[in-house]
């Protein structure tokens, strides 16, 4: 053991209690780059619209927004035809 830790009995005891479970099966099989990419795609991520969907007004906005966009595009086309 390093000299610095010999004087620190309490700290050593506490650090010793940090044990780790080794994932033996995962370590035994190597994944290809493609498999890693698929795993990355399939891994759960944070919802980017979490702030919107938490509130009812935000949820309503997410539903109405595509309709408003559609109407806006339709109106532009009407003006272009005139």
């Amino acid at each position: 053991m390093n000299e610095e830790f010999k004087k620190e009995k309490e700290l050593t005891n506490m650090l010793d209690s940090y044990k780790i479970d080794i994932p033996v099966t995962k370590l035994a099989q190597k994944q290809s780059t493609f498999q890693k990419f698929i795993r990355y795609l399939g891994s759960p991520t944070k919802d980017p619209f979490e702030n919107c969907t938490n509130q009812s007004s935000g949820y309503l906005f997410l539903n109405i927004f595509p309709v408003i966009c559609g109407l806006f595009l339709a109106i532009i086309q009407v003006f272009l035809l005139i």
Partner: protein
Amino acid sequence: MMASNEELMTAFQIGDKEALAQLYAQLQEPLYCFLYRYSKDEQLSVDIVHDSFEVLQTKKFQYEQHRGKVKSFLFQIAYRLMINKLNRRKRWQTLMPFLVPIQNKTLQAEDTLVIQQAISNLPDKQRAVILLAFYEDLPQEDISLILDIPVGTVKSRLHHAIKSLKAELKEDFHHERGI
């Protein structure tokens, strides 16, 4: 009798594939433990263990026995890979925070969580030094080789890390003593 890592590496440099398998069996666990304690990410640690041994195969002739142990050489490769990956992940996290995968959290004992948190709270540079010095029991010369810093810097970082950990775990010391 079990061959030393250095003997196995020499055999592997000559072309013995079985020696690499034995080297992997002997070093995968300490390497995984170091990576996991540093990053707290199981999958990242497993991937880096695999990648490090791949790099070891390509760089096998760069290893010279008089410059240090095989363990230090492998840990140096792994540490660099991990730092690069973590930096890349941080950049992605800044650009697209919602694309960062959520990590699976495992249930752990309260004591382990306290220590884990205290170690995580240390600055990155101090954390690496304390993990290598305490858990891997590596001499300061080897740590300086792995982290590519002078031995004096290793000493000062270790000193500061111990001081910070003691301050962080102070309440738990008192709790254990019943104060």
